């Protein structure tokens, strides 16, 4: 990996994402944790930009930081979640950490070219270390719009997404409303 502006940007975004991600699960103050969550998701949107998916990057900021983040913060305020923060973790804390670390090691070995060092006979992950097979433009939104309204494409998932959101909204309103609770 050579030193370019792209690699520098990648490491900045990756560190932002992971560092804030760790703070999300360790910070005692739930409000701070939610702010770290937003910061972490912002890093993810930076990664999307590097992956030439600017539309998704904007959606990430708009949906996660603008909507889901606000929803989470409202819920924290409503439940006064940070009032009882004398115990952040439950009894599975150590086991959970072990599981997470082991899972990461397993994924790291199988996802990187390290696995090819183990001589399984064929190079399994060689293509993961190569450059993209083709260049893409930043003008993918147009194509996205064509695909989601294409009869042979994703038009059904597109409508189902709308249905799912409507159902979620109705369900959440029923659950959260005060008089029927």
């Amino acid at each position, binding site marked *: 990996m050579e030193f370019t502006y792209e690699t520098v940007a990648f490491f900045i975004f990756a560190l932002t994402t992971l560092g804030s991600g760790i703070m999300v699960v360790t910070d005692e103050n739930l409000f701070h944790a939610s702010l770290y969550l937003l910061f972490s998701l912002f890093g993810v949107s930076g990664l999307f930009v590097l992956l030439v998916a600017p539309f998704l990057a904007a959606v990430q900021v708009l949906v996660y930081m603008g909507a889901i983040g*606000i929803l989470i913060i409202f819920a924290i305020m409503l439940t006064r979640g940070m009032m009882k923060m004398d115990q952040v973790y439950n009894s599975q804390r150590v086991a959970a950490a072990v599981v997470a670390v082991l899972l990461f090691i397993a994924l790291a070995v199988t996802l990187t070219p390290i696995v090819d060092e183990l001589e399984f006979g064929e190079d399994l992950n060689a293509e993961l270390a190569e450059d993209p097979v083709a260049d893409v433009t930043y003008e993918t939104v147009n194509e996205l719009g064509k695909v989601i309204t294409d009869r042979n494409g994703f038009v059904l998932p597109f409508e189902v997404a709308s249905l799912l959101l409507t159902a979620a909204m109705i369900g959440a309103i029923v659950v959260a409303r005060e008089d029927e609770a």
Partner: protein
Amino acid sequence: MTELLTDAGLSKDFATFLTHLITAGAVATVFLLVPIFTIWLERKVSARMQDRLGPNRVGPYGLLQTIADVLKLMTKEAITPANADKVVFFIAPILMVMSVVLIVAVIPYGENFAPTDLSIGVLYVIAISSLGTIAILMAGWGSNNKYALLGAFRVMAQLVSYEVPMVLALLVPVMLAGTMRMNGIIEAQDSIWFIFVVPVSALIFFVSATAEVGRQPFDLLEAESEIVAGFNIEYGGMQFAMLYLGEWLHAVLICVITAILFLGGWDGPGAKDALLTLPIIDLELPVLGIFYLAAKSFLIYFLHMWVRFTVPRLRIDHLMGFNWKFLVPVGVFNLLVVAFAWKIMPEPDSSSLGDELPRALVVLASNVLFVMLIFFVIRDYARRERAKVEALVDETVYAAASAGD
């Protein structure tokens, strides 16, 4: 300018990067100085509308008043409350200004003269503005003050609600232009401005943008008489000035965005050819384009001011009702109506006025019909409500009369 730096012996990438930095600094500085003028302007205009004189002591016509205010705020002690969440309290005003300044990056001034022309330009603007709501929430929470938190929550409710009709209205120009690029939208208005094609969207955008920047009559965020001052109650000195600056800059920028989306942005007679070549850095400045954009933005800004000093403040339940029960349904149906009218007419052969006109007229007609329909529905509803009230009044009057007998 990049060439100049590469000639000086820098690598191409580094030169580009340096150019980016300098451009960013330049446009941001220019825009950050604009509120100094508009604050003076607004005070002066409000004074004239209310039959007062306005600032007239510092400098000619009081022009330096804002600068004096800034200097005063600069020397004020910045008090951080003892109970405050200090880091969040400190970051909030900075994030507030950031969320607004970053919008400047996609504003075009000429055909080939924009800081950057992102393929998702319009969406970028909305996404960045949504960071501002987080900043307000952080300010309210960080202050650790009941009023600040309540104010922040009310602001959030308002900003979040009015973002919906704003984006719905904004989808229409994107649909007509077939792109989210700022310059693409402006070029699509080459022959006819979108405000003459889809006036309903323009109006919805104007109203919801007023609410989005929290100007009267939607200024519940700082309803002094109701929640002291809202989320910025604990702020003082330059930190308060930054919250204030963010708000004012947002007000200016939303006018620029409106001008770009509906009034053709920098486009105008001769705008493409009136270039002023700057020496040394070899930059072709589209003077006429900048002038057109500024003039159009100012026109909208003046409309904002006019509304501001004429209409009284809304109550919060009316505010929310107006949004969710009127603007959002209207915005949704407007999108459908425009989409349909736009589709039934064939694609014009060229983008000249004569070829574009039939389709534009059909869309305009659909808009007019739609408005008439809305008026009918509202009239019907109002009559029913009125009948109800009258029946109620009659009942009570008769009851009182019979009790009197």
